[in-house]
């Protein structure tokens, strides 16, 4: 694990992050159009196909820093398309944590890959949902203006506060686990079998 990242690794990170980004954009757009409720769950759905990509990336470049770079670049793109600043910050912090978690050990294993990926996806889900908490006053204002009964507003606040947050983060975690699991199956079925990567 002492090897440093080189230009080829950076390019692979760029290429695969581009793919993950596009998948993320497509799914989040579809889910936003489908309805505001499904919208908040997009990180956990995105995590499933992206699991395949991320598992390949980790297997191909088992070096320290992959998670962080990948997260940092996605963060920059999120900034460009108007995401709340909490998402980029959450992404980078999540990336750094996962890097230490996986790469702190001597060797990257299937197990550590999947754990780190699930954690990463949970952090992403958390940072995607957090704005709701921050924007609460704005929402209340909008709802009052729209003549919504105070009881409902209260109910809404309760939902967005703790239970909803827990559910969404848990969904992110589960999505990450499923994605990682499918990703590793695909890894074994295709890339390892074809001799393109090897993982312990």
């Amino acid at each position, binding site marked *: 694990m002492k090897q440093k990242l080189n*230009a080829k690794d950076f390019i692979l990170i760029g290429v*695969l992050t581009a793919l993950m980004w596009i998948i993320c954009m497509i799914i989040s757009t579809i889910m936003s159009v489908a309805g505001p409720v499904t919208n908040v769950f997009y990180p956990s759905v995105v995590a499933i196909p992206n699991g395949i990509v991320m598992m390949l990336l980790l297997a*191909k470049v088992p070096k320290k820093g992959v998670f962080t770079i990948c997260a940092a670049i996605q963060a920059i793109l999120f900034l460009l398309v108007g995401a709340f*600043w909490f998402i980029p910050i959450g992404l980078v912090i999540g990336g750094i944590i996962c890097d230490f978690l996986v790469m702190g050990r001597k060797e990257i294993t299937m197990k550590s890959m999947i754990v780190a990926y699930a954690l990463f996806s949970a952090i992403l889900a958390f940072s995607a949902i957090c704005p709701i908490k921050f*924007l609460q006053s704005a929402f209340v204002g*909008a709802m009052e*203006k729209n003549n919504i009964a105070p009881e409902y507003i209260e109910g809404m606040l309760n939902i967005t506060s703790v239970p909803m947050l827990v559910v969404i983060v848990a969904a992110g975690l589960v999505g990450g686990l499923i994605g990682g699991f499918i990703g590793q199956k*695909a890894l074994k079925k*295709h*890339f390892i079998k074809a001799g393109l990567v090897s993982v312990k």
Partner: protein
Amino acid sequence: MEEAQIKQIIERQPLHGSALLDPRCKILLLVCIGFVSYFLAGEVVSLVLMLVYGLFIALGNGGKWAVKMIVTYIIVAYLNALLRYVQVPILSVIMSVFGVTVLKLIPIMMMGLWILRTTYMDDLMVALQRMRLPQAVTIPLVVMFRYIPTLRIEYRQIRSTMDIRGISDTLWKRVSHPLATIEYILIPLLMRCLKVTDELAASGTTRGLELECKRYALRTIRFAWPEIVVSLLGILFLAGLLLIDQTKIGEIILWRV
């Protein structure tokens, strides 16, 4: 053609006005807007933010884009106001939350995509390098911007083959076997990604990509007086908006049907 003429062609500038600012200045403004937009509650100040930055963008090759986004903004704002007539309890709660979020997002998106369109890749690389960001960020970022358009072409190629071979070619097959569909699309795409990476890396390293020299772009990239003035004005303007938002003006209701 003479070399002097060719040099003129090379230096010819399709960009003008605010589009010519140093990428660092544009990014700084973007981050500030991203921060402020979510904290502005008042409808008037939010619209002012939108209009002023729309004007800023229109001064730099972004006229059409700014108009499009401002129109979108107004439509969404009106639709939001219309919600008061739709009294379906849960739905209207959710819709107003959604509408508010979209309104906060539009100014940032307007600015972000404008930056993407008006920034040359080499300017960006130079700017990022001057910000002391390592190659670990600059290379993947540049590769990414270049690879996203290619991905669409490659996806189409794969889908063509799938259609001809009868693999996940009907909506029913896609819905009933979503995972298989993902696999059939992603695996060839990833194989291709691995190949492209090898070729790009070979082509890049033989042209000195790994050298960490100080870069110079085809355009002079400097954080000079115009950038300093624009950044300061931008920040002052946003701070002012935040302040005004706390006063009576912030409470004025603009969108009423």
